[in-house]
């Protein structure tokens, strides 16, 4: 790891001034940043530790029924906040399906949004990677790419955004509050991350010094009764998504009034599936509608390598998530949050016991 200067500002304005200096990086829990620094992938000259900044660690209920989540709230604290989990069950489920308990205890809300791709070529300084070293090429294109993007990718970069948390957030119209050199501004989470195009090194719309202060969710009472997150992994737990989906349905009188849908693991950013939402609006919550929604969600998908299977897999996960959401949010999250295997009775399989 390259050495660095360490500063721990006491106020947000001091933090912004310190981080606006070229070569600086914000440090929160460091669960992704320290990993990247150990590998020599990220080499900051100066770390600006924001963990002691006041007022960023609260979960606040807003007068309009929405919620404001401070950027330093730990993933585990948000997921286990009973009030929050009742209002935004798919968000809680996504959080609890991510990483491990140790990492969820440390990792912050703001850090989750800004975590980097887990593309193996990005993580390997000996490989060509346009994201890490612009213009160097992309070794993923002809490499091990079965887990790479099928939506939104470019010839320059086929990496995926790894977050679970961001998937239901983007489906539910989350807004990001940013403090910067010219004051406070807001941006829809859907617009925070950029598509790679020919500049995959530019991942977000943040400017130097910009600090994520909070994430806001609008009131979603209409969706809380029918909201799920589903995540297919290559092992049961503690793995990134191969494909994932968040679905929230507002169902009244046997019809879907409105739907919210987003996908994870398939694109360079958390992927809102508006075409699927349009298909679902004013439909009966049945298999036909869910299949049509799945086709619509993946209509623009194309393989970036050995990953054509992810398109069919994502369609099935979309349909499955919608089926589970329509059945109703469970009283208590399953023992294996977001696992497609949670709902299958597998008592016949020795060693595997699933209670949901």
């Amino acid at each position, binding site marked *: 790891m390259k050495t660095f200067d*360490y500063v721990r500002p006491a106020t947000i304005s001091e933090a912004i001034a310190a981080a606006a200096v070229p070569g600086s990086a914000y440090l929160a829990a460091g669960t992704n940043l320290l990993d990247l620094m150990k*590998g020599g992938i990220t080499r900051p000259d100066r770390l600006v530790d924001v963990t002691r900044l006041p007022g960023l660690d609260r979960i606040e209920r807003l007068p309009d029924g929405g919620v404001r989540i401070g950027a330093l709230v730990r993933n*585990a604290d948000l997921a286990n906040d009973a009030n929050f989990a009742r209002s935004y069950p798919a968000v809680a489920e996504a959080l609890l399906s991510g990483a491990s308990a140790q990492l969820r205890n440390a990792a912050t809300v703001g850090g989750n949004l800004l975590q980097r791709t887990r593309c193996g070529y990005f993580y390997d300084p000996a490989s060509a990677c346009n994201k890490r070293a612009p213009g160097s090429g992309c070794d993923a294109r002809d490499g091990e790419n079965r887990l790479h993007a099928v939506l939104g990718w470019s010839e320059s970069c086929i990496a995926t955004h790894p977050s679970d948390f961001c998937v239901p957030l983007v489906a539910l119209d989350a807004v990001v509050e940013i403090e910067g050199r010219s004051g406070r501004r807001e941006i829809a989470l859907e617009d925070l991350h950029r598509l790679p195009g020919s500049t995959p090194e530019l991942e977000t719309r943040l400017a130097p010094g910009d600090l994520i202060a909070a994430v806001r969710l609008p009131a979603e009472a209409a969706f809380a009764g029918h909201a799920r997150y589903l995540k297919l992994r290559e092992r049961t737990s503690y793995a990134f998504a191969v494909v994932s989906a968040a679905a929230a349905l507002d169902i009244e009188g046997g019809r879907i009034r409105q739907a919210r849908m987003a996908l994870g693991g398939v694109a360079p950013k958390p992927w809102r599936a508006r075409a699927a939402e349009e298909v679902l609006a004013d439909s009966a919550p049945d298999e036909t509608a869910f299949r049509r929604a799945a086709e619509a969600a993946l209509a623009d998908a194309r393989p970036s390598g050995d990953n054509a299977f992810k398109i069919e897999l994502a369609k099935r996960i979309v349909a499955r998530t919608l089926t589970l959401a329509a059945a109703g949010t469970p009283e208590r999250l399953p023992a294996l949050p977001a696992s497609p295997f949670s709902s299958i009775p597998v008592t016949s399989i020795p060693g595997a016991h699933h209670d949901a």
Partner: protein
Amino acid sequence: MNFSISLIVNGERRNVELDDPRVTLLDLLRERLHLTGTKKGCDRGQCGACTVLVNGRRINSCLALALSHDGAEILTIEGLAKGGELHPVQAAFIEHDGFQCGFCTPGQIMSAIGLIQEGQAGDDSERVREGMSGNLCRCSAYRGITEAVLDAQTRLAKAHRRDAA
């Protein structure tokens, strides 16, 4: 540039001078305080061998910058036994064969204590396995680990009820 930090480690205040900002909490425990019970496995947050409790919560000490934890209260495997008597989770790991080579065991035990304190798993073995998925065991003693956690949790709950009565 030197940095001075103060921690409470296993109940004892420790003031540490750091000549290098890169020191992780794991390296501070092992190399500066010589508390080598906490293990360095992958050093990248993937194996859980470095799990310790920081302010009562389990985290991976390999992905924690020591400087950022100035003032924190740390509990490691060395701080568990009291006067030669094992912590109930330690005793349960022995009784249930919750290990073979033992390298991952300090992390497993600290993680189990964190899990029990979090109170989310109850007596559901599936929830215990899910809650312990951040701790890998290459000897695959998982069955014994799960039994040990469930048993220790029951014993701790009984002891707690006894203390409350």
